């Protein structure tokens, strides 16, 4: 395995967040790790807590739900619905942070093969700039405040 690359985060428009990262594995494996609950539990925590719920009903109209618990018991939950499922290539799903139910985002994740590796891009489309900013701001607070806030950011960015 090659050394880890940093995720790149950009803000293409007022309502969007674009996250990209290349992985040293073919798209089938990345897709599997992305859509298999017991595998998702192992990486989604980002070293900031424990993923206690990872439900994935991987079909158009199917629901997903994730819950994470921090050390200290702080719980954050997200859910959404799959809109497009193209195995090994593309997922489109809604995302709702359950503490902010009106701010639904639409996430488009693509898995693109590049010389046996996989370029993953996640485009987070919010309905309003304020929602997008709140989504990222949660990370800012976390960086400056305490570990529980950090957790909220992590969980909020669950796709």
């Amino acid at each position, binding site marked *: 395995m090659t050394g*880890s690359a940093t995720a790149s*985060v950009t*803000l293409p428009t007022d309502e969007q967040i674009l996250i990209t990262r290349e992985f040293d594995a073919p798209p089938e*494996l990345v897709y599997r790790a992305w859509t298999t609950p017991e*595998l998702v539990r192992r990486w989604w925590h980002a070293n*900031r807590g424990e993923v206690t719920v990872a439900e994935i009903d991987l079909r158009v109209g199917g629901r997903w739900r994730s819950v994470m618990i921090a050390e200290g018991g702080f719980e954050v939950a997200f859910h959404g619905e799959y809109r497009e499922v193209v195995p090994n290539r593309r997922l489109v799903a809604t995302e709702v942070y359950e503490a902010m139910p009106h701010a639904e985002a639409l996430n488009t994740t693509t898995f693109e093969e590049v010389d046996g590796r996989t370029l993953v891009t996640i485009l987070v489309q919010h309905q309003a700039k304020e929602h997008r900013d709140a989504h990222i701001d949660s990370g*800012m607070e976390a*960086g400056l405040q305490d570990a529980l806030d950090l957790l909220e950011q992590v969980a909020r960015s669950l796709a």
Partner: protein
Amino acid sequence: MARAATTTDAFNAVAEPRRRQILDVLARGERPVNDLVAELDLSQPQVSKHLRVLREVGAVDVRGEGRRRVYRLNGAALRPIHDWVKDYEQTWSERFDQLDVVLGELKKEQADDR
């Protein structure tokens, strides 16, 4: 406690794709307007308009060099934007580092199965 209100304009200024292109070019070194026009395939009025917005929020500085006006990036003004996104980016980086570990195991399983 989000970002400071004074940086709001800079955030808006940088949200525009053409202006980000200009900043990308200036990140490689200062440029007179004509060079920006040539590199970006935009008209001079377009470039000047975007530069004016970027100057107003302090994202770029300008100096006169003879008759030319030379623009450069003002890193300090852009710092809040960088910091704002950085923590979010850090979370994803750590998350993806964990995914690397999972993928390493999946690759090994796949190789063992062959």
